[in-house]
């Protein structure tokens, strides 16, 4: 009898206490909502092709984190919390000791600030700064396009976000995933999942968001400007460029050093011509592995309690504002340069300054070609485009310095 009762209790308990039953408990519906949000982001990644390399792992991490009882959500917010979790010193609301799960270990690389710099290493090893070296003035466009970050910051403060949260939301305007994750993991880790998802979504939407703004702010004449051929760049210049940028930026703004430094190390490994073996490893093996772990663990930070509230809804609005203002900032500064250079700079390439490499540059190319089919702005737009990566790393340094 005892046996049959035990079996019955076990089988019954499986079903009555499974995740399904949890959904009908107090607050359990939130997890269900999160699961459907995860499905939505998976659909965006798979069907719509929105930055699938990160969207799919993030969405899957979100799904796993919200399946009740699976212990696949990130359970700590700072390094001390990680140590406490390992040592069995963290408890949940009911006083049960928490045990560390897979996502807690994978998330360590985010919280420690290791994954984003390693991804920057890989991006650096894939980026060609030739256009920027040949035409340094386009560097300024990559700076101007960071304007959206600071506009979004003001609005976020007005919407009663903390300064740290406001800074994390604002950095979405940098149009740079690893930078956004790096800043948010330091300033407002509780918003990490939402901000990462918003950042990658808007980056995927660049071809939709940018063109109307670009057209609204420029005249037909400006958009028709055909730019001069870029000068050739020597190997020596390509080697000295990453070293110079690292030294100048890090000395002026130490908090931008880790992102800019790793980006430039990756580029140096590529351009030195002596270290192809490890440059390849940085842009392939290392980057792919880190991408999986970053995406999955960032997604796993979205427990139902932290993700689904009014503050998250604001991220969607503010992220769009940041993007749009960044585009406008780049285009407007492009117009200034158009005047200064007496029509030698096409303002459209300013929009590429938001980074989102290489999509924003392609958008500039496309818009330019609409006015003049034989106008090829792509190479000229690559300058602001890659400078946008550096620009948003610098903006990240400013935010970290002021808000940390």
């Amino acid at each position, binding site marked *: 009898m005892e046996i049959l009762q035990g079996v019955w209790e076990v089988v019954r308990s499986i079903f009555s206490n499974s995740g399904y039953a949890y959904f009908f408990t107090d607050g359990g519906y939130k997890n269900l909502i999160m699961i459907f949000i995860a499905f939505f982001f998976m659909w965006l990644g798979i069907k719509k092709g929105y930055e699938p390399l990160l969207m799919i792992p993030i969405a899957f991490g979100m799904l796993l984190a919200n399946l009740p009882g699976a212990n696949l959500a990130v359970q700590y917010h700072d390094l001390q919390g990680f140590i406490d979790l390992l040592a069995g010193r963290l408890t949940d609301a009911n006083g049960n000791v928490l045990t560390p799960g897979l996502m807690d270990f994978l998330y360590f690389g985010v919280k420690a600030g290791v994954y984003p710099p390693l991804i920057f290493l890989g991006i650096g090893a894939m980026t060609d700064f030739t256009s*920027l070296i040949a035409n*340094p003035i386009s560097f300024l466009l990559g700076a*101007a396009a960071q304007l959206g970050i600071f506009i979004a910051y003001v609005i976020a403060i007005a919407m009663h976000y903390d300064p740290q949260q406001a800074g994390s939301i604002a950095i979405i305007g940098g149009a740079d995933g690893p930078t956004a994750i790096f800043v948010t993991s330091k300033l407002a880790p509780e918003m990490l999942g939402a901000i990462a998802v918003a950042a990658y979504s808007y980056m995927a939407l660049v071809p939709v968001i940018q063109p109307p703004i670009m057209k609204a702010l420029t005249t037909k004449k400006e958009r028709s400007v055909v730019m001069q051929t870029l000068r050739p760049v020597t190997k020596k210049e390509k080697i000295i460029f990453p070293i110079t940028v690292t030294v100048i930026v890090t000395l002026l703004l130490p908090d931008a050093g880790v992102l800019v430094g790793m980006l430039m190390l990756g580029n140096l490994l590529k351009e030195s011509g002596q270290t192809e073996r490890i440059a390849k490893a940085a*842009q392939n093996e290392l980057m792919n592995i880190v991408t999986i772990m970053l995406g999955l663990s960032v997604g796993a930070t979205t427990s139902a309690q932290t993700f689904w509230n009014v503050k998250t809804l604001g991220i969607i609005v503010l992220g769009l504002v940041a993007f749009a203002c960044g585009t406008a900032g780049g285009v407007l500064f492009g117009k200034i340069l158009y005047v200064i250079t007496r029509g030698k700079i096409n303002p459209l390439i300013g929009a590429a300054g938001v980074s989102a490499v290489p999509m924003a540059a392609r958008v500039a190319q496309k818009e330019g070609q609409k006015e003049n089919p034989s106008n090829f702005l792509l190479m000229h737009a690559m300058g602001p485009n890659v400078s946008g990566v550096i620009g948003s790393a610098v903006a990240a340094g400013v935010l970290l310095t*002021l808000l940390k």
Partner: protein
Amino acid sequence: MNLSALLNTLDLVADSSPAFTSTVVISGPTIVLAVIAVLVIILVLFGRATRRAADAKNHLTQHEKDKRDGTINGKKPEKREFREPLPAAPQGVSPEIVAAISAAVYMLEGEGAVVTSIRPLRKNPISCRNPWAAAAIAENTKPF
């Protein structure tokens, strides 16, 4: 000495006050622009130094030098011998660049583009050491 340490001595606490917010929103873009402006100045100076060194070293003919400077200083070159065979090529854009860009655009956008020569692809500014790295660049520069 760290900047945030200094900010503490300035009594600039990170809060939601208008004062601090204005500080962020004004100093933020200023600093970004200033840092980048310093880089621009250094790059411009360095570019000039490189060219001067190259000139001294290579004993360029005046003709070649003019051509190259024309491109860099933004002056229109008076004449381009290879301009005629490519009717669509506009001022300041060499046919090789057109071809290279056409190929790049075609690869990225899938739209038709007139490719006049296949040779310049070898000089494609996107470094394509191996097909896997090239695929990686095309595929992976997208998300970041």
